């Protein structure tokens, strides 16, 4: 199946499903009538005669079958990371050979080997001495199904409009300001729709790994490994023409990336100390350096561009070397253990700059550097000490220092242009940010009785930053925990922490001209003064052998107490409960519920021009909130001992995002903002499986999967590629740039799917 193909029921599927039902009936009939003791040993069949003639030991499993898919499955959400299309399958294959002494081995096999999400492996070596591993894993990622685009991919990242810009004549559509007439909108939409053709959105990630592990002595382990990850396909990419405010176009940009990683490790371990040295090199390669796309308006003043092209750079090739050492030692005092780790990494990138302009007349010479010579050095030093001066007290101390040092030169570009070669040639300097982070923590745990353990702790975290608003910040964290084990079958754990973060003496300053008009009260949440409170309670109990349950509650609140504009507060809380009941050894039931709630509040102020100011009366609040509820129930039964296993599982998930709004926003259109429509999704999953052992070596397996998914998302529902006539929540737009925009909306459409897999397994 190629990415983007639609899955439709065919007569072939009907015949296969009939056969599947027949096989299920056979299994059920045999289960009812053919129950009873399996001939021979209950566990482990004697070796078949053909194995005894081999000069080596051989064991394994071979499982083959087929899978079918039924229903409305035309949604990328269903196929996102899976290949469930109807086809023959090899769900499991494992072959393992050993020499007659049982010291050397070769094992190979795979899972779902005929599917694009399959995997393969090979292991070989000598037990406890040497091992070679090879693995190959495939992972699809479907982003969009049955999508359309107006662009043609000419290869090399170049996207053109067949026949040139959209028809400029009809109703004065693209070249003139489209205004708001229905005729103009219809003309634009018609032009766009006439150019639409199918495109695929998604990519395949294939990873190959090799590793060698050698133990020259029981204390020394040497490993070497290499992996290659390849991503190929397409992904949505947005381009804008002109100064902020231009129309947006989206196209399916090529994805052609490789990640090579190789490393070597030496580890030496004695009974009271361990040392480890490691080197890793990682290389990222991108086969696509830049993308270019035609402007839907062509070149010229309309749509505000000069070149008729947009151009953007893609992710550059980069390289990283990491040297690290780690160790631990058990000291002869107070059961003390000292651990430490030091790591130094060099990140480098020197990709040739993408030319600023797409016009030959404006392709100025570089006059100097043609690449960034980007360099980051990352140092980590981390140490920990754990001690038990007396058996009931455990003391822990940790120190961690992390420093990302950016040694990329600072460049000032005096002729920066927006895509489409627009803009007046602005001057911008780069900001090679660096930061360092230090953590010191200490805690003490006291086992007061056999049932009760209390723990207190303190942590200090300091951030130091360059080129950012808060050069320094300190956070002080106090922690407490209580573990209570009233009996041997129950454990309860309560933890609480309170943290206060404050900006250093230099305060919070504006560092970029573009933010000069931002109020001094505007604070970015990753740097702002903040209190953070966290609470968590966990209970697990098995009051009777057949019953166990667990409960969990957590809550976290961040309050940015000096932030007038920006993120002011965030809260997260959740709770869950699980229960397992096993009335008989052969039957168990389980169920659970989880709720997760994240909400925040932020205040913003509309600023109409580059020179400001903010009108305090144009202040609006946003209250995003994300909720998730998940239910699951299930059962597992050994219907016939050593013969028939059955399992059934149902899961229901309800997710929703709410965006409350209030205040007075000012700005385009002015007026009071209103709450946005909720974004919701509902997900039902039913999974049933049966495993029937016909003989000691032959097993029949069946899996049935039912999924039903519904979603409501105003940001993509009813959004066609052309935004000329887009209607959202009953409203449309009057903006010329909106009307000229052409997207590839990724709808996560509803689906209802029935998947069945049948297989026969042979074990030897």
């Amino acid at each position: 199946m190629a990415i983007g193909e639609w899955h439709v029921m065919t007569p072939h599927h009907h015949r296969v499903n009939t056969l599947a039902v027949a096989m299920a009936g056979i299994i059920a009939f045999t289960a009812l009538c053919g129950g009873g003791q399996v001939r021979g040993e209950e566990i482990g069949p004697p070796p078949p005669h053909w194995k005894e003639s081999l000069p080596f030991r051989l064991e394994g499993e071979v499982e083959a079958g087929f899978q079918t898919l039924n229903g409305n499955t035309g949604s990328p959400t269903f196929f996102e990371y899976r290949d469930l299309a109807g086809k023959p399958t090899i769900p499991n294959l494992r072959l393992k050979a050993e020499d007659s002494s049982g010291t050397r081995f070769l094992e190979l096999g795979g899972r779902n080997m005929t599917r694009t999400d399959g995997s393969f492996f090979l292991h070989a070596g000598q037990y406890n001495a040497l091992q070679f591993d090879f693995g190959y894993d495939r992972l699809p990622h479907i982003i969009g199904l049955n999508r359309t685009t107006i662009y043609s991919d000419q290869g090399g990242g170049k996207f053109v409009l067949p026949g040139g810009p959209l028809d400029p004549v009809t109703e004065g559509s693209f070249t003139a300001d489209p205004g708001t007439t229905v005729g103009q909108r219809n003309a634009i939409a018609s032009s766009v729709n006439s150019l639409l053709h199918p495109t695929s959105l998604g990519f395949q990630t294939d990873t190959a790994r090799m590793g060698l592990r050698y133990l020259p002595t029981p204390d020394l382990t040497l490993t070497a490994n290499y992996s290659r990850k390849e991503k190929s396909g397409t992904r949505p990419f947005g381009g804008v023409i002109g100064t902020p405010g231009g129309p947006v176009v989206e196209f399916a940009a090529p994805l052609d990336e490789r990640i090579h990683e190789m490393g070597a490790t030496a580890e030496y371990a004695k009974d009271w100390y361990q040392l480890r040295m490691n080197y890793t090199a990682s290389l990222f390669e991108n086969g696509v350096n830049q993308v270019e796309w035609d402007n839907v308006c062509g070149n010229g003043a309309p749509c505000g561009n000069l070149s008729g092209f947009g151009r953007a750079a893609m992710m550059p090739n980069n390289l990283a070397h990491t040297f690290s050492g780690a160790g631990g030692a058990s000291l002869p005092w107070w059961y003390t253990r000292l651990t430490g780790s030091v790591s130094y990494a060099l990140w480098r990138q020197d990709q040739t700059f993408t030319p600023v302009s797409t016009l030959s007349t404006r392709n100025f010479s570089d006059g100097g550097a043609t690449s960034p010579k980007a360099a980051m050095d990352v140092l980590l030093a981390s140490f920990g000490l754990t001690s038990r001066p007396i058996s009931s007290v455990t003391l822990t101390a940790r120190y961690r220092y992390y420093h990302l040092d950016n040694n990329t030169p600072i460049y000032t570009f005096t002729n920066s242009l927006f895509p489409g070669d627009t803009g007046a040639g602005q001057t911008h300097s780069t900001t090679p940010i660096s930061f360092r982070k230090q953590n010191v923590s200490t805690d003490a745990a006291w086992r007061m009785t056999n049932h009760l353990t209390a723990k207190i702790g303190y942590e200090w975290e300091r951030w130091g930053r360059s080129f950012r608003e808060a050069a320094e910040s300190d956070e002080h964290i106090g922690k407490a925990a209580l573990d209570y084990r009233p009996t041997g079958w129950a454990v309860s754990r309560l933890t609480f922490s309170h943290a206060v973060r404050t900006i250093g003496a230099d305060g919070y300053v504006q560092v970029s001209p573009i933010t000069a008009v931002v109020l001094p009260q505007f604070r970015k949440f990753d740097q702002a003064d903040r209190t953070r409170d966290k609470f968590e309670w966990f209970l697990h109990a098995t009051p009777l052998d057949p019953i166990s349950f667990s409960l969990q509650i957590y809550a976290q609140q961040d309050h940015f107490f000096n932030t007038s504009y920006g993120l002011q507060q965030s809260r997260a809380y959740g709770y869950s409960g699980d229960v397992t009941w096993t009335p008989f050894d052969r039957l168990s039931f389980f169920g659970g519920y989880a709720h997760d709630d994240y909400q925040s509040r932020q205040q913003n102020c509309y600023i109409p021009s580059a020179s400001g100011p903010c009108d305090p009366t144009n202040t609006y609040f946003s209250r995003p909130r994300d909720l998730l509820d998940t239910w699951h129930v299930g059962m597992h039964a050994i219907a016939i001992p050593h013969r028939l296993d059955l399992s059934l599982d149902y899961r229901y998930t309800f997710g929703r995002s709410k965006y409350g709004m209030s205040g007075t926003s000012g700005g385009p259109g002015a007026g009071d903002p209103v709450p946005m429509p909720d974004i919701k999704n509902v997900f039902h999953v039913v999974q049933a499986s049966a495993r029937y052992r016909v003989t000691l070596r032959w097993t029949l397996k069946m899996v049935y999967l039912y999924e039903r998914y519904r979603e409501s998302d105003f940001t993509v529902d009813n959004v066609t590629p052309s935004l000329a006539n887009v209607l959202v929540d009953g409203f449309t737009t009057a903006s010329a740039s909106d009307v000229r925009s052409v997207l590839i909306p990724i709808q996560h459409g509803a689906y209802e799917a029935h998947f069945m897999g049948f297989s026969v397994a042979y074990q030897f």
Partner: protein
Amino acid sequence: MSFTVVRNRLARNTMRVQRCLWVRLVGLFSLLLVSTLWQCSLDPRRHEAVSPPTIADAAYVGSQTCLECHADHQQNMEASLHGKILLGSVARTDLQRQGCEACHGPGSRHMEDYSDRSAIITFGSGSPQPAVSQNAVCLQCHVKGRRLFWQGSAHEIRDVSCVACHSVHNAQTRHANLRAPSQLQLCGQCHAIKAAMAFNWAHMPIREGKMQCADCHNVHGSLTESLIQENSVNENCYRCHADRRGPFLHEHPPVRENCIACHVAHGSNNPRLLRIRPPRLCQQCHNESRHPSTAFGLPGGLADRRMLGRSCLSCHTNIHGSNHPSGFAFTR
């Protein structure tokens, strides 16, 4: 186009001085560690933080003796890697050669009185040995690798025993001998809310079985927050998303500092695992003039191209960093 190169001497000098200081401190610690190791090597005593349990007045009886009564374990053990080493012919240390008794201790007293639970080392909630002692048995062989920072780790200080997650005799997975068919199920027994987040609409391929909890976390202990495997959250993400590592000509500071400032790794109701959707997400930090400060929440404002689809990221596509000379706004 022309450019000038300017160095921020004050910031770099400060960084350089501090780097020298830390180089010296690291060197001092290394000297201290080497000295300690040398001194300890002169001490004949054992230095384990916690010793495995010992069974007084007991002698080894041999694995075959154990299997006379515990034959139900034989086939599973002989097929497992533990069995290949302990019961096979590839043992390389005195401890490994003890077979079953390498973990369960010498069994002579257990042979004399099966009901005496102190006469044999057992594992699990019903064992008379505390979790820390049970774990010491496993750590005799498994102290290196991913267990290097086990002592003092989040699970260890909460008395989580090795057998809470692993089972030598009744494992449900071939790799790592887990007690549950998958890591998601196993970890979800205690971290139920995080496991439930994997069933969000936007998720990594964990519930499909293509990723595991241990791909990002070192559950046996780590010196990084939240038991992250690598030196930082970002370096963890770069293993699969190396395109985001850069460095870039134009950096986006919160992106460089912490991926989870914007993303929720365990699962989200928002596209691309974002914590909340743009433009609200972006407006938590950006209130610059004109469109970054626009509410986009008016009646009719919802049909704006900066609200629909990928919102801010439709234009600011290279949001993780740009290598284009004109990429200061991450639009190129």
